[in-house]
Protein backbone atom coordinates (compact mmCIF):
# COMPACT_ATOMS: atom_id res chain seq x y z
CA UNK A 1 0.00 0.00 0.00
CA UNK A 2 2.19 2.76 -1.22
CA UNK A 3 -0.10 5.62 -0.34
CA UNK A 4 1.36 9.07 0.00
CA UNK A 5 0.99 10.36 3.53
CA UNK A 6 -0.30 13.90 3.86
CA UNK A 7 -0.36 15.55 7.32
CA UNK A 8 -1.77 13.26 9.96
CA UNK A 9 -5.30 13.89 11.13
CA UNK A 10 -5.91 15.13 14.65
CA UNK A 11 -7.46 12.86 17.23
CA UNK A 12 -10.67 14.84 17.06
CA UNK A 13 -10.91 14.44 13.30
CA UNK A 14 -10.53 10.69 13.60
CA UNK A 15 -13.07 10.53 16.40
CA UNK A 16 -15.52 12.45 14.27
CA UNK A 17 -15.03 10.17 11.29
CA UNK A 18 -15.58 7.12 13.44
CA UNK A 19 -18.67 8.60 15.02
CA UNK A 20 -20.21 9.18 11.64
CA UNK A 21 -19.23 5.73 10.54
CA UNK A 22 -21.29 4.21 13.35
CA UNK A 23 -24.14 6.20 11.96
CA UNK A 24 -23.28 5.04 8.47
CA UNK A 25 -23.36 8.42 6.79
CA UNK A 26 -20.65 10.87 5.74
CA UNK A 27 -20.67 14.11 3.80
CA UNK A 28 -18.60 13.88 0.61
CA UNK A 29 -16.28 16.82 1.35
CA UNK A 30 -15.57 15.60 4.88
CA UNK A 31 -14.97 12.12 3.65
CA UNK A 32 -12.49 13.32 1.03
CA UNK A 33 -10.57 15.11 3.74
CA UNK A 34 -10.66 12.01 6.01
CA UNK A 35 -9.50 9.60 3.39
CA UNK A 36 -6.54 11.80 2.58
CA UNK A 37 -5.42 12.33 6.14
CA UNK A 38 -6.52 9.38 8.30
CA UNK A 39 -4.34 6.28 8.34
CA UNK A 40 -5.67 2.72 8.75
CA UNK A 41 -4.11 2.22 12.17
CA UNK A 42 -5.74 5.40 13.43
CA UNK A 43 -9.11 4.18 12.20
CA UNK A 44 -8.75 0.79 13.85
CA UNK A 45 -7.69 2.22 17.21
CA UNK A 46 -10.41 4.85 17.09
CA UNK A 47 -12.93 2.21 16.02
CA UNK A 48 -12.13 0.05 19.02
CA UNK A 49 -12.27 3.02 21.38
CA UNK A 50 -15.55 3.98 19.74
CA UNK A 51 -16.99 0.51 20.27
CA UNK A 52 -15.98 0.53 23.95
CA UNK A 53 -17.54 3.97 24.43
CA UNK A 54 -20.66 2.75 22.68
CA UNK A 55 -20.94 -0.21 25.04
CA UNK A 56 -20.36 1.99 28.08
CA UNK A 57 -23.00 4.47 26.95
CA UNK A 58 -25.51 1.69 26.47
CA UNK A 59 -24.71 0.30 29.91
CA UNK A 60 -25.23 3.75 31.41
CA UNK A 61 -28.57 4.14 29.70
CA UNK A 62 -29.61 0.69 30.91
CA UNK A 63 -28.59 1.63 34.48
CA UNK A 64 -30.57 4.79 34.18
CA UNK A 65 -33.81 3.23 33.02
CA UNK A 66 -33.70 0.36 35.50
CA UNK A 67 -32.74 2.30 38.60
Amino acid sequence: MAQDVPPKASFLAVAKAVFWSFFGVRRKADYDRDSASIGPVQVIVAGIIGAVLFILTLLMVVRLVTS
Partner: protein
Amino acid sequence: MSAVLDDHGHDHGHDDHHHGYSGIMRWITTTNHKDIGTLYLWFSFTMFMVGGVMALVIRAELFTPGLQIVNPDFFNQMTTMHGLIMVFGAIMPAFVGFANWLIPMQIGAPDMAFARMNNWSFWLLPFAGALLIISFFMPGGAPGVGWTMYAPLTVQMGIGMDFTIFAIHILGMSSIMGSINIVTTVLNMRAPGMTLMKMPLFCWTWLITAYLLIASMPVLAGAVTMTLTDRHFGTSFFNAAGGGDPVLYQHIFWFFGHPEVYIIILPAFGVISQIIPAFSRKPLFGYASMVYATASIAILSFIVWAHHMYTVGMPVTGQLFFMYATTLIAVPTAAKMFNWLATMWRGSLTFETPMLFALGFLFLFAIGGFSGLVLALAAVDIQLQDTYYVVAHFHYVMVAGALFTAFAGIYFWLPKWTGRMYNETLGKVHFWLSMIFFNMIFFVQHFLGLAGMPRRIPDYPLQFETWNKISSIGAFGFGLSQLLFLYIVVKAITSGEKAADKQWEGADSLEWTHLPSPAPYHSFETPPVVK
Protein backbone atom coordinates in the same frame (compact mmCIF):
# COMPACT_ATOMS: atom_id res chain seq x y z
CA MET B 1 1.86 -18.12 -7.22
CA SER B 2 4.91 -19.45 -8.99
CA ALA B 3 2.83 -21.96 -10.88
CA VAL B 4 0.99 -19.07 -12.42
CA LEU B 5 3.97 -16.92 -13.21
CA ASP B 6 6.26 -19.64 -14.55
CA ASP B 7 3.92 -20.63 -17.30
CA HIS B 8 3.05 -17.18 -18.39
CA GLY B 9 6.04 -14.97 -18.11
CA HIS B 10 5.50 -13.97 -21.73
CA ASP B 11 2.61 -12.93 -23.83
CA HIS B 12 1.65 -15.48 -26.42
CA GLY B 13 -1.89 -14.66 -27.29
CA HIS B 14 -3.66 -17.89 -26.51
CA ASP B 15 -4.78 -17.13 -23.05
CA ASP B 16 -7.45 -19.74 -22.73
CA HIS B 17 -4.95 -22.48 -23.09
CA HIS B 18 -4.35 -24.48 -19.91
CA HIS B 19 -0.96 -25.91 -19.22
CA GLY B 20 -0.30 -28.91 -17.07
CA TYR B 21 -2.98 -31.41 -16.28
CA SER B 22 -6.20 -31.89 -18.14
CA GLY B 23 -9.53 -33.51 -17.33
CA ILE B 24 -10.36 -34.00 -13.69
CA MET B 25 -6.75 -33.47 -12.62
CA ARG B 26 -6.92 -29.93 -13.92
CA TRP B 27 -9.62 -29.18 -11.38
CA ILE B 28 -7.93 -31.02 -8.55
CA THR B 29 -4.60 -29.31 -9.03
CA THR B 30 -5.76 -25.91 -10.20
CA THR B 31 -4.40 -22.78 -8.57
CA ASN B 32 -6.25 -20.43 -10.88
CA HIS B 33 -8.67 -18.12 -9.12
CA LYS B 34 -11.23 -18.45 -11.89
CA ASP B 35 -11.18 -22.26 -11.83
CA ILE B 36 -11.44 -22.22 -8.06
CA GLY B 37 -14.27 -19.71 -8.17
CA THR B 38 -16.11 -22.00 -10.56
CA LEU B 39 -15.52 -24.97 -8.28
CA TYR B 40 -16.88 -23.07 -5.31
CA LEU B 41 -19.99 -22.07 -7.21
CA TRP B 42 -20.76 -25.57 -8.46
CA PHE B 43 -20.11 -27.03 -5.05
CA SER B 44 -22.46 -24.48 -3.59
CA PHE B 45 -25.16 -25.30 -6.10
CA THR B 46 -24.82 -29.03 -5.41
CA MET B 47 -25.18 -28.44 -1.69
CA PHE B 48 -28.11 -26.15 -2.38
CA MET B 49 -29.83 -29.05 -4.11
CA VAL B 50 -29.01 -31.49 -1.30
CA GLY B 51 -30.17 -29.07 1.39
CA GLY B 52 -33.19 -28.28 -0.75
CA VAL B 53 -34.28 -31.91 -0.88
CA MET B 54 -34.09 -32.00 2.92
CA ALA B 55 -36.26 -28.91 3.09
CA LEU B 56 -38.80 -30.66 0.88
CA VAL B 57 -38.84 -33.66 3.21
CA ILE B 58 -39.59 -31.26 6.06
CA ARG B 59 -42.33 -29.47 4.13
CA ALA B 60 -43.83 -32.75 2.90
CA GLU B 61 -44.12 -33.98 6.47
CA LEU B 62 -45.68 -30.69 7.54
CA PHE B 63 -48.21 -30.69 4.71
CA THR B 64 -50.86 -32.15 7.04
CA PRO B 65 -51.08 -32.64 10.79
CA GLY B 66 -50.05 -36.04 12.05
CA LEU B 67 -47.00 -38.11 11.22
CA GLN B 68 -47.00 -39.37 7.64
CA ILE B 69 -43.67 -39.65 5.94
CA VAL B 70 -40.78 -39.65 8.37
CA ASN B 71 -40.42 -40.42 12.04
CA PRO B 72 -39.77 -37.54 14.44
CA ASP B 73 -36.13 -38.45 14.95
CA PHE B 74 -35.43 -38.39 11.23
CA PHE B 75 -37.35 -35.14 10.99
CA ASN B 76 -34.96 -33.59 13.48
CA GLN B 77 -32.00 -34.87 11.48
CA MET B 78 -33.49 -33.19 8.43
CA THR B 79 -33.93 -29.78 10.06
CA THR B 80 -30.41 -29.96 11.48
CA MET B 81 -28.67 -30.96 8.29
CA HIS B 82 -30.79 -28.66 6.16
CA GLY B 83 -29.61 -25.72 8.26
CA LEU B 84 -25.95 -26.72 8.43
CA ILE B 85 -25.72 -27.58 4.74
CA MET B 86 -27.46 -24.43 3.56
CA VAL B 87 -25.45 -22.09 5.78
CA PHE B 88 -22.01 -23.67 5.51
CA GLY B 89 -22.32 -25.60 2.27
CA ALA B 90 -24.47 -23.44 0.04
CA ILE B 91 -24.52 -19.76 0.99
CA MET B 92 -21.02 -19.22 2.34
CA PRO B 93 -19.20 -21.07 -0.48
CA ALA B 94 -21.30 -19.28 -3.09
CA PHE B 95 -19.97 -15.92 -1.98
CA VAL B 96 -16.42 -17.23 -1.65
CA GLY B 97 -16.86 -18.31 -5.25
CA PHE B 98 -17.80 -14.77 -6.20
CA ALA B 99 -14.80 -13.47 -4.26
CA ASN B 100 -12.44 -15.76 -6.12
CA TRP B 101 -13.75 -14.86 -9.50
CA LEU B 102 -14.13 -11.16 -8.95
CA ILE B 103 -11.70 -9.73 -6.43
CA PRO B 104 -8.53 -10.24 -8.55
CA MET B 105 -10.26 -8.88 -11.65
CA GLN B 106 -11.80 -5.95 -9.82
CA ILE B 107 -8.57 -4.78 -8.21
CA GLY B 108 -6.41 -5.52 -11.26
CA ALA B 109 -4.44 -8.43 -9.76
CA PRO B 110 -3.32 -11.54 -11.68
CA ASP B 111 -4.63 -14.03 -9.12
CA MET B 112 -5.24 -14.50 -5.41
CA ALA B 113 -2.23 -13.94 -3.15
CA PHE B 114 -1.83 -17.57 -2.02
CA ALA B 115 -2.84 -19.60 -5.04
CA ARG B 116 -2.07 -23.01 -3.58
CA MET B 117 -3.74 -22.32 -0.28
CA ASN B 118 -6.70 -21.26 -2.35
CA ASN B 119 -6.81 -24.71 -3.91
CA TRP B 120 -6.67 -26.24 -0.46
CA SER B 121 -9.43 -24.02 0.94
CA PHE B 122 -11.71 -25.28 -1.75
CA TRP B 123 -10.78 -28.96 -1.66
CA LEU B 124 -11.45 -29.17 2.05
CA LEU B 125 -15.10 -28.45 1.37
CA PRO B 126 -16.15 -31.63 -0.43
CA PHE B 127 -14.70 -33.63 2.44
CA ALA B 128 -16.58 -31.61 5.01
CA GLY B 129 -19.76 -31.96 2.96
CA ALA B 130 -19.17 -35.69 2.70
CA LEU B 131 -18.74 -35.98 6.49
CA LEU B 132 -22.07 -34.27 7.00
CA ILE B 133 -23.81 -36.57 4.57
CA ILE B 134 -22.07 -39.75 5.78
CA SER B 135 -23.30 -39.01 9.29
CA PHE B 136 -26.75 -40.13 8.14
CA PHE B 137 -25.41 -43.65 7.73
CA MET B 138 -23.86 -43.89 11.16
CA PRO B 139 -25.53 -45.78 14.00
CA GLY B 140 -28.19 -43.41 15.31
CA GLY B 141 -28.09 -41.36 12.11
CA ALA B 142 -27.18 -37.73 11.72
CA PRO B 143 -27.45 -35.55 14.81
CA GLY B 144 -30.96 -34.20 15.37
CA VAL B 145 -29.86 -31.32 17.53
CA GLY B 146 -30.69 -28.33 15.32
CA TRP B 147 -28.13 -26.37 13.31
CA THR B 148 -27.28 -24.43 16.47
CA MET B 149 -25.98 -27.65 18.06
CA TYR B 150 -27.09 -26.75 21.59
CA ALA B 151 -25.85 -28.66 24.58
CA PRO B 152 -26.89 -30.82 26.34
CA LEU B 153 -28.44 -32.70 23.39
CA THR B 154 -25.13 -32.67 21.56
CA VAL B 155 -23.49 -34.45 24.46
CA GLN B 156 -25.97 -37.31 24.14
CA MET B 157 -26.05 -37.88 20.37
CA GLY B 158 -24.50 -40.83 18.57
CA ILE B 159 -21.37 -40.95 16.49
CA GLY B 160 -22.99 -38.84 13.76
CA MET B 161 -22.41 -35.88 16.07
CA ASP B 162 -18.66 -36.43 15.93
CA PHE B 163 -18.78 -36.45 12.15
CA THR B 164 -20.61 -33.16 12.25
CA ILE B 165 -18.11 -31.67 14.68
CA PHE B 166 -15.22 -32.62 12.42
CA ALA B 167 -17.07 -31.26 9.42
CA ILE B 168 -17.42 -27.94 11.25
CA HIS B 169 -13.72 -27.92 12.04
CA ILE B 170 -12.83 -28.48 8.41
CA LEU B 171 -15.30 -25.91 7.16
CA GLY B 172 -13.87 -23.41 9.62
CA MET B 173 -10.32 -24.06 8.43
CA SER B 174 -11.42 -23.59 4.87
CA SER B 175 -13.11 -20.29 5.70
CA ILE B 176 -10.14 -18.98 7.63
CA MET B 177 -7.70 -19.82 4.85
CA GLY B 178 -10.00 -18.26 2.31
CA SER B 179 -10.20 -15.14 4.45
CA ILE B 180 -6.46 -14.82 4.88
CA ASN B 181 -6.18 -15.08 1.14
CA ILE B 182 -8.76 -12.38 0.54
CA VAL B 183 -7.28 -9.98 3.08
CA THR B 184 -3.78 -10.41 1.67
CA THR B 185 -4.96 -10.06 -1.90
CA VAL B 186 -6.95 -6.92 -1.27
CA LEU B 187 -4.32 -5.25 0.86
CA ASN B 188 -1.26 -6.11 -1.22
CA MET B 189 -2.15 -6.84 -4.80
CA ARG B 190 -4.13 -3.86 -6.00
CA ALA B 191 -3.06 -2.38 -9.33
CA PRO B 192 -1.19 0.94 -9.24
CA GLY B 193 -3.67 3.71 -8.63
CA MET B 194 -6.34 1.38 -7.22
CA THR B 195 -6.52 2.90 -3.76
CA LEU B 196 -8.70 1.22 -1.17
CA MET B 197 -11.32 3.89 -1.58
CA LYS B 198 -11.50 3.31 -5.33
CA MET B 199 -12.23 -0.39 -5.01
CA PRO B 200 -15.62 -1.63 -6.07
CA LEU B 201 -17.78 -1.98 -2.98
CA PHE B 202 -17.86 -5.75 -3.41
CA CYS B 203 -14.13 -5.88 -2.55
CA TRP B 204 -14.73 -3.74 0.50
CA THR B 205 -17.55 -5.87 1.84
CA TRP B 206 -15.44 -8.98 1.35
CA LEU B 207 -12.42 -7.41 3.05
CA ILE B 208 -14.54 -6.67 6.10
CA THR B 209 -16.26 -10.05 5.95
CA ALA B 210 -12.89 -11.77 5.87
CA TYR B 211 -11.96 -10.10 9.16
CA LEU B 212 -15.29 -11.16 10.63
CA LEU B 213 -14.59 -14.74 9.58
CA ILE B 214 -11.11 -14.71 11.05
CA ALA B 215 -12.51 -13.36 14.30
CA SER B 216 -15.54 -15.60 14.61
CA MET B 217 -14.79 -19.01 13.09
CA PRO B 218 -12.29 -19.93 15.83
CA VAL B 219 -15.02 -19.25 18.37
CA LEU B 220 -17.28 -21.79 16.70
CA ALA B 221 -14.39 -24.22 16.49
CA GLY B 222 -13.90 -23.73 20.23
CA ALA B 223 -17.55 -24.39 20.96
CA VAL B 224 -17.67 -27.63 19.01
CA THR B 225 -14.31 -28.75 20.37
CA MET B 226 -15.59 -28.28 23.89
CA THR B 227 -18.61 -30.34 22.89
CA LEU B 228 -16.25 -32.99 21.57
CA THR B 229 -14.20 -33.15 24.77
CA ASP B 230 -17.39 -33.24 26.82
CA ARG B 231 -18.49 -36.20 24.76
CA HIS B 232 -15.30 -38.21 24.84
CA PHE B 233 -12.67 -36.90 27.20
CA GLY B 234 -14.52 -36.45 30.45
CA THR B 235 -14.71 -32.67 30.55
CA SER B 236 -17.91 -30.94 31.67
CA PHE B 237 -18.02 -27.59 29.97
CA PHE B 238 -21.68 -27.92 29.10
CA ASN B 239 -22.74 -30.96 31.06
CA ALA B 240 -24.66 -29.82 34.10
CA ALA B 241 -24.27 -33.21 35.77
CA GLY B 242 -20.53 -32.58 35.93
CA GLY B 243 -20.86 -28.96 37.04
CA GLY B 244 -20.91 -27.49 33.53
CA ASP B 245 -23.35 -25.01 32.09
CA PRO B 246 -25.37 -25.57 28.90
CA VAL B 247 -26.07 -21.85 28.69
CA LEU B 248 -22.34 -21.27 28.26
CA TYR B 249 -22.62 -23.10 24.97
CA GLN B 250 -25.32 -20.73 23.79
CA HIS B 251 -23.21 -17.70 24.61
CA ILE B 252 -20.21 -19.08 22.73
CA PHE B 253 -22.28 -20.23 19.79
CA TRP B 254 -24.07 -16.91 19.35
CA PHE B 255 -20.92 -14.91 19.84
CA PHE B 256 -19.99 -16.66 16.63
CA GLY B 257 -23.53 -16.90 15.31
CA HIS B 258 -24.52 -13.31 15.07
CA PRO B 259 -21.34 -12.18 13.26
CA GLU B 260 -21.96 -15.21 11.07
CA VAL B 261 -25.25 -13.81 9.83
CA TYR B 262 -23.35 -10.70 8.75
CA ILE B 263 -20.69 -12.86 7.17
CA ILE B 264 -23.52 -14.16 5.04
CA ILE B 265 -25.15 -10.85 4.25
CA LEU B 266 -22.23 -8.42 3.83
CA PRO B 267 -20.87 -9.96 0.60
CA ALA B 268 -24.45 -9.93 -0.62
CA PHE B 269 -24.58 -6.20 0.14
CA GLY B 270 -21.44 -5.93 -1.98
CA VAL B 271 -23.01 -7.69 -4.94
CA ILE B 272 -26.13 -5.54 -4.70
CA SER B 273 -23.93 -2.46 -4.60
CA GLN B 274 -22.42 -3.46 -7.95
CA ILE B 275 -25.69 -4.34 -9.62
CA ILE B 276 -27.98 -1.47 -8.66
CA PRO B 277 -25.62 1.26 -9.97
CA ALA B 278 -25.08 -0.72 -13.19
CA PHE B 279 -28.79 -0.85 -14.00
CA SER B 280 -29.43 2.66 -12.77
CA ARG B 281 -26.56 3.96 -14.92
CA LYS B 282 -25.41 6.09 -12.04
CA PRO B 283 -22.50 5.71 -9.63
CA LEU B 284 -23.34 4.27 -6.24
CA PHE B 285 -24.81 6.96 -4.04
CA GLY B 286 -22.73 7.58 -0.92
CA TYR B 287 -19.88 5.16 -1.61
CA ALA B 288 -17.96 6.28 1.46
CA SER B 289 -20.93 5.95 3.76
CA MET B 290 -21.45 2.45 2.39
CA VAL B 291 -17.91 1.54 3.42
CA TYR B 292 -18.40 3.13 6.82
CA ALA B 293 -21.76 1.51 7.34
CA THR B 294 -20.34 -1.91 6.48
CA ALA B 295 -17.50 -1.45 8.95
CA SER B 296 -19.79 -0.36 11.73
CA ILE B 297 -22.25 -3.18 11.12
CA ALA B 298 -19.28 -5.53 11.42
CA ILE B 299 -18.16 -4.08 14.74
CA LEU B 300 -21.63 -3.88 16.23
CA SER B 301 -22.36 -7.45 15.18
CA PHE B 302 -20.11 -8.63 18.01
CA ILE B 303 -22.09 -7.05 20.81
CA VAL B 304 -25.63 -8.20 20.16
CA TRP B 305 -25.41 -11.99 20.39
CA ALA B 306 -27.67 -12.53 23.39
CA HIS B 307 -30.73 -11.36 21.46
CA HIS B 308 -30.91 -15.06 20.59
CA MET B 309 -31.10 -15.91 24.26
CA TYR B 310 -33.74 -13.69 25.84
CA THR B 311 -35.65 -16.74 27.03
CA VAL B 312 -32.83 -18.63 28.73
CA GLY B 313 -33.04 -16.23 31.64
CA MET B 314 -30.96 -13.12 32.04
CA PRO B 315 -31.17 -10.02 34.21
CA VAL B 316 -33.38 -7.28 32.89
CA THR B 317 -30.31 -5.08 32.47
CA GLY B 318 -28.87 -7.71 30.14
CA GLN B 319 -32.07 -7.87 28.14
CA LEU B 320 -32.14 -4.11 27.79
CA PHE B 321 -28.50 -3.89 26.78
CA PHE B 322 -28.85 -6.45 24.02
CA MET B 323 -32.15 -5.01 22.93
CA TYR B 324 -30.74 -1.48 22.57
CA ALA B 325 -27.60 -2.67 20.84
CA THR B 326 -29.58 -4.81 18.40
CA THR B 327 -32.03 -2.12 17.45
CA LEU B 328 -29.16 0.30 16.90
CA ILE B 329 -27.67 -1.99 14.24
CA ALA B 330 -30.67 -1.07 12.17
CA VAL B 331 -29.24 2.43 11.78
CA PRO B 332 -26.27 1.61 9.53
CA THR B 333 -28.38 -1.01 7.78
CA ALA B 334 -30.99 1.60 7.03
CA ALA B 335 -28.24 3.91 5.77
CA LYS B 336 -27.43 1.26 3.21
CA MET B 337 -31.01 0.82 2.12
CA PHE B 338 -31.27 4.56 1.75
CA ASN B 339 -28.15 4.67 -0.41
CA TRP B 340 -29.42 1.98 -2.75
CA LEU B 341 -32.72 3.76 -3.14
CA ALA B 342 -30.93 7.06 -3.72
CA THR B 343 -28.76 5.37 -6.35
CA MET B 344 -31.88 4.47 -8.28
CA TRP B 345 -33.45 7.88 -7.81
CA ARG B 346 -33.63 9.56 -11.22
CA GLY B 347 -31.39 6.94 -12.74
CA SER B 348 -32.23 5.53 -16.14
CA LEU B 349 -33.40 2.21 -14.84
CA THR B 350 -33.78 -1.00 -16.79
CA PHE B 351 -35.00 -4.26 -15.37
CA GLU B 352 -32.93 -7.15 -16.62
CA THR B 353 -32.88 -10.30 -14.51
CA PRO B 354 -29.98 -9.28 -12.22
CA MET B 355 -31.74 -6.02 -11.44
CA LEU B 356 -35.02 -7.81 -10.79
CA PHE B 357 -33.33 -10.04 -8.24
CA ALA B 358 -31.60 -7.01 -6.72
CA LEU B 359 -34.94 -5.25 -6.33
CA GLY B 360 -36.47 -8.42 -4.95
CA PHE B 361 -33.65 -8.37 -2.43
CA LEU B 362 -34.32 -4.75 -1.43
CA PHE B 363 -37.99 -5.37 -0.92
CA LEU B 364 -37.78 -8.68 0.92
CA PHE B 365 -34.65 -7.90 2.92
CA ALA B 366 -36.51 -4.90 4.29
CA ILE B 367 -39.25 -7.22 5.51
CA GLY B 368 -36.65 -9.50 7.10
CA GLY B 369 -34.94 -6.54 8.73
CA PHE B 370 -38.20 -5.37 10.22
CA SER B 371 -39.15 -8.77 11.57
CA GLY B 372 -35.63 -8.83 13.07
CA LEU B 373 -36.39 -5.59 14.84
CA VAL B 374 -39.61 -7.07 16.15
CA LEU B 375 -37.68 -10.04 17.52
CA ALA B 376 -35.06 -7.75 18.98
CA LEU B 377 -37.62 -6.42 21.45
CA ALA B 378 -37.12 -8.66 24.45
CA ALA B 379 -40.71 -8.51 25.63
CA VAL B 380 -42.01 -9.54 22.22
CA ASP B 381 -39.34 -12.13 21.60
CA ILE B 382 -40.25 -14.03 24.73
CA GLN B 383 -43.50 -14.82 22.96
CA LEU B 384 -42.00 -15.46 19.57
CA GLN B 385 -38.76 -17.25 20.36
CA ASP B 386 -38.69 -20.75 18.87
CA THR B 387 -41.82 -20.18 16.82
CA TYR B 388 -42.23 -20.06 13.07
CA TYR B 389 -41.96 -16.28 13.25
CA VAL B 390 -38.23 -16.71 13.75
CA VAL B 391 -38.12 -19.18 10.86
CA ALA B 392 -39.85 -16.60 8.68
CA HIS B 393 -37.45 -13.87 9.80
CA PHE B 394 -34.26 -15.67 9.00
CA HIS B 395 -35.45 -17.01 5.71
CA TYR B 396 -36.33 -13.50 4.60
CA VAL B 397 -32.79 -12.40 5.33
CA MET B 398 -30.98 -15.53 4.20
CA VAL B 399 -33.01 -16.71 1.20
CA ALA B 400 -34.41 -13.43 -0.08
CA GLY B 401 -31.33 -11.62 1.20
CA ALA B 402 -28.36 -13.82 0.44
CA LEU B 403 -29.67 -16.41 -2.03
CA PHE B 404 -31.53 -13.96 -4.25
CA THR B 405 -28.38 -11.88 -4.32
CA ALA B 406 -26.35 -14.89 -5.38
CA PHE B 407 -28.82 -15.40 -8.23
CA ALA B 408 -28.55 -11.73 -9.14
CA GLY B 409 -24.77 -11.98 -9.15
CA ILE B 410 -24.71 -15.11 -11.27
CA TYR B 411 -26.98 -13.59 -13.91
CA PHE B 412 -24.92 -10.41 -13.77
CA TRP B 413 -21.46 -11.96 -14.17
CA LEU B 414 -22.30 -15.07 -16.18
CA PRO B 415 -21.63 -13.21 -19.46
CA LYS B 416 -18.22 -12.16 -18.15
CA TRP B 417 -17.39 -15.61 -16.84
CA THR B 418 -18.55 -17.68 -19.79
CA GLY B 419 -18.66 -15.19 -22.64
CA ARG B 420 -22.27 -16.16 -23.22
CA MET B 421 -25.64 -14.72 -22.32
CA TYR B 422 -28.48 -16.44 -20.55
CA ASN B 423 -31.97 -16.28 -21.94
CA GLU B 424 -33.44 -13.05 -20.58
CA THR B 425 -37.06 -14.20 -20.78
CA LEU B 426 -36.36 -17.40 -18.90
CA GLY B 427 -34.32 -15.44 -16.35
CA LYS B 428 -37.31 -13.22 -15.69
CA VAL B 429 -39.58 -16.24 -15.39
CA HIS B 430 -37.14 -17.68 -12.86
CA PHE B 431 -37.26 -14.44 -10.91
CA TRP B 432 -41.03 -14.23 -10.76
CA LEU B 433 -41.44 -17.89 -9.87
CA SER B 434 -38.88 -17.56 -7.10
CA MET B 435 -40.47 -14.37 -5.83
CA ILE B 436 -43.99 -15.75 -5.73
CA PHE B 437 -43.13 -19.13 -4.27
CA PHE B 438 -40.70 -17.66 -1.76
CA ASN B 439 -43.41 -15.46 -0.29
CA MET B 440 -45.87 -18.28 -0.41
CA ILE B 441 -43.57 -20.42 1.71
CA PHE B 442 -42.40 -17.86 4.20
CA PHE B 443 -44.83 -14.99 4.49
CA VAL B 444 -47.50 -17.25 5.93
CA GLN B 445 -45.01 -18.55 8.47
CA HIS B 446 -45.24 -15.16 10.19
CA PHE B 447 -48.90 -15.95 10.84
CA LEU B 448 -48.08 -19.43 12.09
CA GLY B 449 -45.47 -18.03 14.45
CA LEU B 450 -47.73 -15.32 15.79
CA ALA B 451 -50.39 -17.96 16.38
CA GLY B 452 -47.86 -19.93 18.40
CA MET B 453 -46.68 -22.77 16.19
CA PRO B 454 -43.27 -23.91 17.49
CA ARG B 455 -40.36 -24.48 15.09
CA ARG B 456 -38.60 -27.83 14.65
CA ILE B 457 -41.69 -30.01 15.19
CA PRO B 458 -42.89 -32.78 12.85
CA ASP B 459 -46.53 -32.53 13.86
CA TYR B 460 -48.87 -29.72 14.83
CA PRO B 461 -52.43 -29.02 16.02
CA LEU B 462 -55.21 -28.78 13.46
CA GLN B 463 -55.65 -25.01 13.58
CA PHE B 464 -52.32 -24.52 11.81
CA GLU B 465 -53.23 -26.68 8.85
CA THR B 466 -54.18 -24.11 6.20
CA TRP B 467 -51.05 -22.00 6.32
CA ASN B 468 -48.87 -25.07 6.50
CA LYS B 469 -50.47 -26.44 3.36
CA ILE B 470 -49.85 -23.20 1.51
CA SER B 471 -46.29 -23.10 2.77
CA SER B 472 -45.62 -26.67 1.66
CA ILE B 473 -47.05 -26.10 -1.82
CA GLY B 474 -44.90 -23.00 -2.11
CA ALA B 475 -41.85 -25.01 -1.09
CA PHE B 476 -42.30 -27.53 -3.89
CA GLY B 477 -42.88 -24.71 -6.36
CA PHE B 478 -39.73 -22.97 -5.21
CA GLY B 479 -37.70 -26.15 -5.45
CA LEU B 480 -38.89 -26.87 -8.99
CA SER B 481 -38.18 -23.27 -10.04
CA GLN B 482 -34.55 -23.80 -9.14
CA LEU B 483 -34.33 -26.58 -11.70
CA LEU B 484 -35.26 -23.91 -14.22
CA PHE B 485 -32.31 -21.90 -12.93
CA LEU B 486 -29.98 -24.84 -13.52
CA TYR B 487 -31.38 -25.23 -17.02
CA ILE B 488 -30.89 -21.52 -17.77
CA VAL B 489 -27.28 -21.56 -16.62
CA VAL B 490 -26.35 -24.77 -18.43
CA LYS B 491 -28.10 -23.59 -21.58
CA ALA B 492 -26.22 -20.28 -21.42
CA ILE B 493 -22.87 -22.02 -20.97
CA THR B 494 -23.41 -24.50 -23.77
CA SER B 495 -25.29 -22.50 -26.37
CA GLY B 496 -25.99 -18.98 -25.17
CA GLU B 497 -25.59 -16.01 -27.45
CA LYS B 498 -22.18 -14.40 -27.43
CA ALA B 499 -21.88 -11.76 -24.74
CA ALA B 500 -20.33 -8.36 -25.28
CA ASP B 501 -17.17 -7.40 -23.42
CA LYS B 502 -19.17 -4.81 -21.57
CA GLN B 503 -22.48 -6.59 -21.54
CA TRP B 504 -24.12 -4.12 -19.17
CA GLU B 505 -24.04 -0.53 -20.26
CA GLY B 506 -23.72 0.88 -16.75
CA ALA B 507 -21.16 -1.56 -15.34
CA ASP B 508 -17.90 0.21 -14.62
CA SER B 509 -15.54 -2.04 -12.66
CA LEU B 510 -12.31 -3.30 -14.23
CA GLU B 511 -13.61 -6.72 -15.25
CA TRP B 512 -16.08 -4.99 -17.56
CA THR B 513 -13.99 -2.09 -18.78
CA HIS B 514 -10.59 -3.76 -19.22
CA LEU B 515 -11.22 -7.43 -19.99
CA PRO B 516 -12.93 -9.28 -22.84
CA SER B 517 -15.82 -11.71 -22.32
CA PRO B 518 -15.14 -14.44 -21.42
CA ALA B 519 -12.41 -13.15 -19.15
CA PRO B 520 -9.14 -14.80 -20.22
CA TYR B 521 -7.76 -17.60 -18.07
CA HIS B 522 -5.00 -15.31 -16.87
CA SER B 523 -5.90 -11.67 -16.55
CA PHE B 524 -3.93 -8.60 -15.50
CA GLU B 525 -0.53 -10.24 -15.51
CA THR B 526 0.59 -6.73 -16.28
CA PRO B 527 -1.42 -4.59 -13.90
CA PRO B 528 -3.71 -2.00 -15.45
CA VAL B 529 -3.15 1.58 -14.46
CA VAL B 530 -6.12 3.00 -12.62
CA LYS B 531 -6.65 6.73 -12.70
